[in-house]
């Protein structure tokens, strides 16, 4: 993964994920027993992946020749986040989709993504969201960096400068103790937090262009390029279909993909239930509150 001194195009990869909207659980998603019905949750573009894409788009504004590829791994429905990436300004998109990738933990996910990134060829920067709101692990970014054998900088809240000539990026990462300014040579993987930026909305023009874009599998064994119902001959730099890659397309080893390749197993899942508690209701008048305060003082919970 070495980079020649001068190349005409800066290559940026953005990893994205379609996730259930776990932060806004309302209505039908709540079962009468107090547990969450995951199947009815709407799916969204993982919020911090939008921040990652936005950093790539901001760079492209400064360096118009930069080329952004958004990639996602997931079921065919995950194409939604790729369309959304195109609406916002990604140049190319890849759907990594195969039943054999299903059930992957972070290790197997990062392996599959590594295979896809390698197929994309030489790159300079990978932007990832810090973490996805379904798992909240923040592991796939660092694991992808390790598998590619490249540097990583996590928890980045600001891209300070990018020196295209010198092939370096300088970022600010937030830590428990404050902030660090860190500089790295290309190639490097950066994980971006929500405080980095406010992602731009979709461009109306690009939505018109891409709203019904289809996908095209490049797998030889796959004969369903008929899925590519949408055929338009758009001039460059526009793309005409979403690339769909399967396990063979990216030359992945099935033994280390999906559930097979996942060392972690889920032993048990417990739904968090809102347990009814015997809260002692206190009246909001002076008398009730005064009695409460006196009780807490007498129990030495409040200082006397």
């Amino acid at each position, binding site marked *: 993964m070495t980079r020649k001194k001068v190349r005409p195009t800066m290559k940026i990869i953005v990893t994205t994920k379609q996730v259930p909207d776990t932060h806004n659980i309302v209505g039908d998603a709540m079962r009468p027993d107090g547990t969450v019905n995951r199947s009815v949750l709407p799916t969204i573009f993982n919020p911090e992946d939008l921040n990652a894409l936005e950093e790539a788009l901001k760079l492209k504004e400064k360096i118009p020749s930069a080329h952004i590829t958004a990639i996602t791994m997931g079921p065919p429905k995950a194409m939604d986040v790729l369309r959304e990436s195109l609406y916002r300004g990604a140049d190319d998109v890849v759907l990594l989709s195969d039943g054999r990738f299903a059930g992957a933990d972070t290790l197997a996910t990062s392996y599959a993504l590594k295979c896809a990134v390698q197929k994309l060829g030489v790159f300079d920067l990978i932007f990832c969201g810090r973490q996805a709101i379904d*798992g909240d692990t*923040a592991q796939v970014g660092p694991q992808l960096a*390790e598998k590619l054998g490249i540097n990583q900088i996590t928890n980045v809240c600001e891209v300070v400068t990018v020196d295209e000539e010198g092939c370096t990026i300088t970022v600010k990462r937030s830590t428990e103790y404050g902030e660090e300014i860190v500089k*790295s040579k290309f190639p490097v993987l950066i994980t971006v937090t929500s405080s980095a930026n406010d992602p731009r909305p979709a461009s109306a023009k690009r939505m018109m262009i891409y709203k019904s874009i289809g996908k095209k599998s490049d797998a030889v064994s796959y004969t369903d390029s008929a899925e590519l119902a949408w055929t338009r001959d758009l001039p460059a730099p526009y793309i005409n279909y979403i690339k769909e890659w399967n396990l063979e397309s990216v030359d992945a080893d099935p033994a280390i993909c999906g559930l097979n390749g996942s060392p972690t*197993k*889920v032993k048990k899942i417990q739904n968090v239930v809102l347990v009814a508690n015997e809260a002692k209701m206190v009246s*909001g008048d*002076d008398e009730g509150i*005064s009695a409460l305060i006196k009780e807490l003082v007498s129990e030495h919970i409040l200082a006397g």
Partner: protein
Amino acid sequence: MRDEIHKTKKGHIIMKKNKSVMVFIEYTEESIAEVSLELVCKGKELAEKLQVPLEAIAVGFGANLRRELIKLGQYGCKSVYLIEDERLKHFTSVPYAKAVVETLQRVQPQIVLFGATTTGRDLAPRVASALKCGLTADCTDLQLGEHQIKGQTFHNTLLQIRPAFGGNIVATIVSPEHSPSMATVREGVMRINPPSGNEEHRAAIVDEKVCFDSSSDFPSEVIEIIKSERSVDLKQAKIIVAAGMGAASHEAMALIKELARVIGAEVAVSRPVVDAGILGHDHQVGQTGTTVRPTLYIACGISGQIQHRAGMAESKRIIAINRDPQAPIFSIAHYGIVGDVKDVIPKMIKAYKNK
């Protein structure tokens, strides 16, 4: 790393004896991070149950580093593997991961614990990827137990318990077929036991030799460190007055600060209040903020979304003040007051002053 395992006649699988429990020690500002001490204490408990040694690994550089690490003996830690190099003074991913990976490959512990800090969450996944072992993020509890896979029973497997799915489920994760089992644990979740106080209890320092290549092993350069002191230490607070969106107005926040001042409490907030820019992230209680367990938690205008409750449900006493009698916060509160924060808090201040 495939595990070295013993298979008994009945198909039971037992971890090879003596493989240690290891804790990654974070060393910053010339002292050991509190979360590392918390993990040493939890690690001690696991190691005792497994009847194996508790060990630690530290990477860094500093005048007091060795002296501080030796003191881990007072918490029950037998030995500390140390990778000391001036170039490792500040954390950067690649050389730290290399140091830890090489040491773990040599020592082969069965369990490795990291703090779920910005360092631990950067380092642990990189290490797990290199070792091709399992890693569970942000655990809130660790236990030992059995697990069966295809008719084989694994004994003394690390059960890694964590909230997932935005806090709506609690998952127990295991990785018995690969060693080590690795986990990151959130700060403030495990308790620190007091040190023995006996200076004879010293951890043995084992110097690990890791060869670094200056040209390739240090791709990140830390140019500047901007320290911002935490303005509030919620973990240490005995009493917390917390504001949610129902108390985020200028007027209500002023009352909350006044109540906190009068009763000697710290002010905390829920995530939406931080997102609204009213107070900083260091004031945030909840799944993506700080986990607290004060003696008294006064939740003002907090609806009690599960993400918030995950960070405060273990408070000894909880008073909930909310206009909505159906607010989920009442389900975990010990005392509930249905009413407007702006009416109730002045009455609390008055009652406390007149007590």
